[in-house]
């Protein structure tokens, strides 16, 4: 049965985040009571997820390398690592190194319950690995090609492992040609445990209702949305049941795709899309 391989230090998993850094990512989107540039919402979500993964894989002796993680930005004339600080320029990085090397740890203020019915403002530590960048076009085809190279190498080194998962977060149409064949090429890599998974998320500022994890393209508004849907892999069964447990309606053909995502569905997308088979 595909997508059941054990994820362990001897059999690590692989996440590649592709983050759109085009100019339009500076457009605002709603974030609670305020608005924030889309790029800021996305980089916050990725930073939070890297903390989440580090916590999930932490053991007595420290963070274990159950995963290797790449964060690749694509924007003006550039496709490459979006890590900052010591990890700058690196592609796939073992999770323990990620955990130990955020670019910085910010102190952010947050209102939390004071346990007596009121709210109190406290500061919380927030590790940061990537910052929002917005500039130029959306070279999605090149970004998928970049991921293709990383994935090809990974699959060759880990033929029996859980297949790599590529999560693409974008707000616009590809500006360097139809990405379909690049996506097909990427998903044609496979380990013995199944083909590479490509999940897509379309960020929106429009405020319309997000379409999360659809199982057909019928409800999708336009050809661009349909194209992203077709590029997205069907969710493996353990992610499907997790999505169901989180209140999503799913079927056997539910795909890893969110259209018109708001801030909540970005977090959900990352949470469901990086859900591993059991981690010990």
């Amino acid at each position: 049965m595909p997508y059941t391989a054990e994820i362990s230090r001897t059999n690590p998993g692989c996440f590649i985040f592709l983050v759109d850094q085009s100019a339009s990512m500076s457009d605002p989107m709603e974030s609670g009571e305020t608005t924030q540039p889309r790029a800021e919402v996305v980089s916050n979500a990725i930073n939070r997820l890297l903390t989440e993964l580090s916590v999930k894989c932490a053991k007595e002796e420290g963070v274990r390398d159950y995963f290797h993680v790449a964060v690749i930005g694509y924007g003006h004339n550039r496709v490459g690592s979006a890590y900052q600080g010591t990890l700058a320029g690196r592609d796939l990085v073992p999770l323990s190194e990620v955990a130990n090397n955020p670019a910085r740890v910010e102190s952010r203020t947050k209102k939390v319950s004071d346990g007596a019915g009121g709210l109190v403002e406290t500061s919380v530590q927030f590790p940061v690995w990537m910052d929002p960048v917005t500039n130029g076009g959306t070279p999605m085809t090149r970004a998928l090609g970049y991921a293709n190279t990383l994935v090809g190498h990974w699959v060759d080194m880990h033929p029996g492992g859980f297949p790599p998962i590529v999560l693409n977060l974008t707000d616009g149409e590809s500006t360097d040609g139809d990405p379909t064949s690049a996506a097909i090429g990427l998903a044609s890599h496979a380990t013995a445990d199944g083909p590479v998974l490509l999940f897509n998320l379309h960020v929106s500022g429009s405020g319309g209702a997000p379409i999360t994890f659809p199982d057909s393209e019928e409800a999708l508004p336009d050809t661009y949305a349909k194209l992203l849907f077709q590029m997205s892999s069907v969710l493996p069964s353990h992610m499907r049941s997790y999505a169901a447990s989180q209140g999503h309606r799913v079927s056997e053909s539910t795909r890893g795709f969110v259209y018109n995502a708001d801030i909540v569905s970005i977090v959900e997308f990352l949470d469901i899309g990086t859900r591993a088979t059991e981690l010990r």
Partner: protein
Amino acid sequence: MAVSRDGRPGHGPGSGHGPGAGSARKFPTGANYAEALQHPELCFSDPDLKHGTVQQSPVLGPKPISGNFASVFSVTATNGQRYALKCFTRDSATLGKRYSAISTALGGLGGPGAGGLSQPWPVGFDFLEQGVLVGREWYPAVKMTWVQGTGLINWIEGNLHDPAALHSLADRFLAMTADLEKNGIAHGDLQHGNLLVAADATFRLVDYDGMYVPALRGEQATENGHRNYQSPSRTAADFGPAMDRFSAWTIELALLAVATDPGLWTQLHDRQGEFLILSEMDFKEPATSLAWPVLLSHPDRRVRDVAGRVKGFLGRPTSALPPLTADAVRLPAQRRAPAPASASGAGGYGAGGGLGGSRPTVTSWTPAASGASASGVPAWMAGRIAASTAAPGVTQSPVQQPAGGRAGLSGFGGRSAGDLAAALGALLSTSVPGALVLAAAQPVDVLPAAQGVALLTSAALVGFGRRRRPEYRAARKRVRELKRRSRELADPASLHQRLEKEIRVLDDAIAKDNTASDQRVQALQLELRDGQARITMDLNRRTDQAQQQLAGLAAKERRRVDKALEPAIRAHIQDKLRRTSIQDARSLSNMGNKMVQALQDAGIRTAADFIGVDFSHNPSVVYLVRPGGQRIRVPGIGEARATALSDWRQGLEHRARASAPTTVPPAAKAQIKADIAALRRTHKAEIKQAEAEALQKKAALQQRITDERGRLTGQRQQRAMDTQRRRAELLQQQKQLAGAEAERGRVEAELGVVRGEARGALGVGRYVRFLVTGR
């Protein structure tokens, strides 16, 4: 044991937001808890925790230890007491109920000692309904006493070369599982991560989320345990007192195996692997496992026996497995006739109960790799080497059994080509000059000179031939050795040093060899795993296409049928149209007799005589299109009439289509079915072929790896035996240094004997006789 029932009553303001029983709610993630725990004064209600200090990680704040469904944090209270706080990341409505039942059951066990537990394995806990405040809601948590202990894998690695310690740990493990069995309790997730070994080498069992106690009868399991410790047949329905048995046996087998032969750990445990010596694939696909053959053919009988039992459990339902008892892992001869499970539970804490003194005696083996002196032989060598070399304590004089052997001293044996050449040469050189003399009647004074040369030559040849004899060489070597030894015995201290050094070199060499071969075995395992994965990948790629073709065959068949029907349908429509006179068009509101006449005049007599109308170029100029494609104008037919005519004809066609034949003639249908069946067979054959090839490739790969490993094992055994023998000799020599003077006398005496023999039995005279007679 500090086990309270339900934690503290909920009195915080957040309790109103608590979960209703049975409703699944989204629990905080590990990172959510880590963030909340940055402010213990806000997120806790328990006073110990509220004023406590949360242990921090180097970079990311509160330091978590995460499992599949929870993250654990370390909190030290102001009084110095350290707690482990377990925060759940997955909702379980029955969590509180379960922990309450577990608390009651464990509380009733009593402490360690006579009649109680074998060791203090239970860990005290409080279930806190209001554990942690995250956001605006309280979430439950389990507050446990912090256990100081070493994880099982680390402990094994630290004691790998202490077989006695490993054996007594195996006994303790057995005793602990007996405690559980006796009380009808099962842990649910016995695995290395949940087994801590305290400083006194007794177990602490942690993580009770999946624990079964009798009060939970009828419940379902919330988790199925670690995949590398479970029978493939375990399901959530197996929640009950027997659910630990498979994992218990697996762990006991691992402990016994590495206690008996630490090389098994190096060979079978992956560095950083989440298992001991067996993992999921060994259980799911035992046929392709490399571990089973190693264990099942291990020279140690008990390892073989226990491994055989565990392997036998693979096909069986977990509930049908026997409990792990001390008697079950004894060798048959040592088993007690009736062995009640409870008997093994009474070992007493700290006494290492269970097996006690009934252990086989192979435990004294300390491998050369440890650097310590070898005082025994590894189990797998037993019976393969002579007792005298297996046990260096047995007196064995190197003088009596020299390295070179003494067989040669009884004389020469078996003439070789060299001997024959020497004999021939000697014969020729002495006889030829004689023959010359006789033939040529040389002057007399020449004769002695020639004969002298000839005799010298033959003597040299005989001497050369004799020196080439192995017997002679061995004797010479022995003489040299004895001389050196005699010299050394005059200075016992330096000899002792030399022997010491030689033993060290020997130990280092074998340790290095063993490490290299262990690494090679591990590499082979990896090669097998990756190789099998690659074969599967290739198979998937090859069969994917065929599978898709197969899936599309039904649609293909429908298309073929439709296509086969098409001519019959067309003929039927044509026939119907032809049978409909254009006169019938008079029923149309805008068509009168005059128009019909005009159509007939233009050659349109039936509905089949035109196929459509065309006014695309100019709406005022209307053409009727004839079946051949030619366009004709009919006077009086404008846009409206043309449209009506076209609709009339289409209506006719539509009705005709409805009455058209729907079944393909039997012959055509049979042909289609046959074609599709042939395609199906082809694709299925392709898949079968690919599968068979993959299977063959996998078998070949496994064979290659198994052979290679067999070769390595053989080499290793040979090396170990050689080393042992040599080591025993050296040790013996060292031992005898005490009587160096007497020994020197013996050596001198033997030297005399060997020299004498070399001169006698291996002397020139004997050699010449040997050359001539072969004896």
